[in-house]
């Protein structure tokens, strides 16, 4: 029973399906330099946050480079926009936004994040960046929780 995104006409994939797709993409590369190159590319496709939201309220705490995330509800789905002053960080947040954006808050809350481990990303990040990654995931989920409460 396929449903369609009204603005892209592409079949709407579940968080799990998107995550599996990302894992497959990363598995195509031979080494981590190539994966980082890909991450840098992904960063360029990140739906950018409106400049007016680049403030203290939208900063993800626990990241050493600056990361801003904004969420808003469109119909019953949560749409994320974000940015960072570091390019690789932008790639990381782009991966997360791709997995979680345009999804129902309840699904975002429920979703597991094992795909990060499946990519092998955590082991290839410095401890400070890995902590930052955890903070980003937490922030996306917190937004989902906040909007879920609104929907209820």
């Amino acid at each position: 029973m396929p449903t369609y995104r009204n603005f892209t006409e592409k079949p709407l994939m579940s968080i799990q399906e998107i995550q599996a797709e990302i894992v497959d993409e990363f598995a195509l590369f031979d080494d981590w330099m190539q994966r980082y190159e890909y991450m840098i590319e992904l960063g360029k496709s990140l739906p950018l946050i409106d400049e007016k939201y680049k403030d203290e309220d939208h900063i993800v705490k626990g990241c050493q480079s600056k990361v801003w995330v904004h969420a808003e509800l469109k119909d019953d789905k949560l749409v994320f926009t974000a940015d960072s002053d570091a390019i690789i960080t932008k790639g990381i947040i782009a991966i997360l936004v791709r997995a979680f954006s345009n999804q129902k808050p309840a699904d975002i809350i429920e979703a597991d994040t094992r795909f990060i481990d499946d990519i092998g990303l955590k082991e290839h990040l410095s401890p400070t960046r890995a902590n930052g990654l955890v903070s980003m995931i937490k922030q996306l989920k917190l937004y989902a929780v906040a909007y879920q409460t609104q929907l209820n």
Partner: protein
Amino acid sequence: MIDTGLNIAAIRKDFPILQRKVNGYPLVYLDNAATSQTPRQVIDVIVDYYSNYNANIHRGVHALSQQATDAYEQARIKVQKHFNAALPREIIFTSGTTHSINLVASGFTGFLKEGDQVLVSAMEHHSNIVPWQMLCERSGATLKVIPMTPEGELDMEGFASQLNTRTKMVFCNHVSNALGTINPIETIIRKAHEVGAVVLVDGAQAAPHIKADMQKLDVDFYTVSAHKMCGPTGVGILYGKEEWLLKMPPYQGGGEMIEEVRFEKTTYAGLPHKFEAGTPNIAGGIAFGAAIDYMNGIGMEAIAHYEAELLAYATQKLLAIQGLRIYGTGREKTAVISFNIEGIHPYDIGTLLDQMGIAVRTGHHCAQPIMDYFKIPGTVRASFSFYNTVEEVDRLAAAVEKARQMLS
């Protein structure tokens, strides 16, 4: 090739960790200003301690305790001789520079009052800023700053103009961890003493490169961490002039630091034990002595000479990279290069260097006031040691160029 008479290939064999690979590449370790690597000679001393004479010191009647005590006190004498302190009891073993500085900050609480001033340089590590801010909060004294120039040197005129009879203490590092600048501490100590101020010099970054002479410098306090000079982590020293160590109250209470304990009144042990409460890092202290032996075996002058050549070569190689700017361009520097590439975040460069097996530090280097001064979020810092090679500098330069291309 740099010819300084040192056999770097042979020296590298002393360091087991330098043989390993990281992310598929032979490790290029350029984070020496954070922690230096440990030679086999020092590792062996730690293994030997735990294998053969692990015991608590200064109180046992048995052979192991005696042996451990002797080795620990021998290490103190090695440190004393290396830094040319007048007396072994002027060397207090601590967990490192941070502990050493906090010890003095605590000890001086009762010696300062409202209206007094303390002077701290603009290029300090947070560990040589925050304890003094806390001391000011406790005592009511005011913190003043010795300004810095765009080259990353201390503004000595600014320093002189801040000095007055209310200046009670002056804090400065011998070498800046973030920039590599060697500060003119001889002048700072002399001028501070002219107004009667006490001087603490943070020697953490200088000790691996420069042999500081406590008596010649006439410094009141000097702090060192073993892990920056081929020793283990978690051990360091506070050098203090005996007259100040006698005046200062104990820092922590506990075992080891007492003469007699009665519920009515406890009397404290003499120096250095008064400041060494609890069981210390015995293996660490002994290994610190071994690290000093190791470095002296190579020769501090030969080390400084080789590192200066390495710094000159690396500076020239890196400056050839498009958009690269070095922070800290003073005349007197240790082998530290702090840099950024225009338009690229330092974390991104550091991350890609790590993927290519090169360890550098990125960030504010616990010196946020310096980063604020230059209006940058941080830098990439490559810091060299005597076991680094010209080939490693070439790998660094090639990797930075590759990162630049990927991130531009």
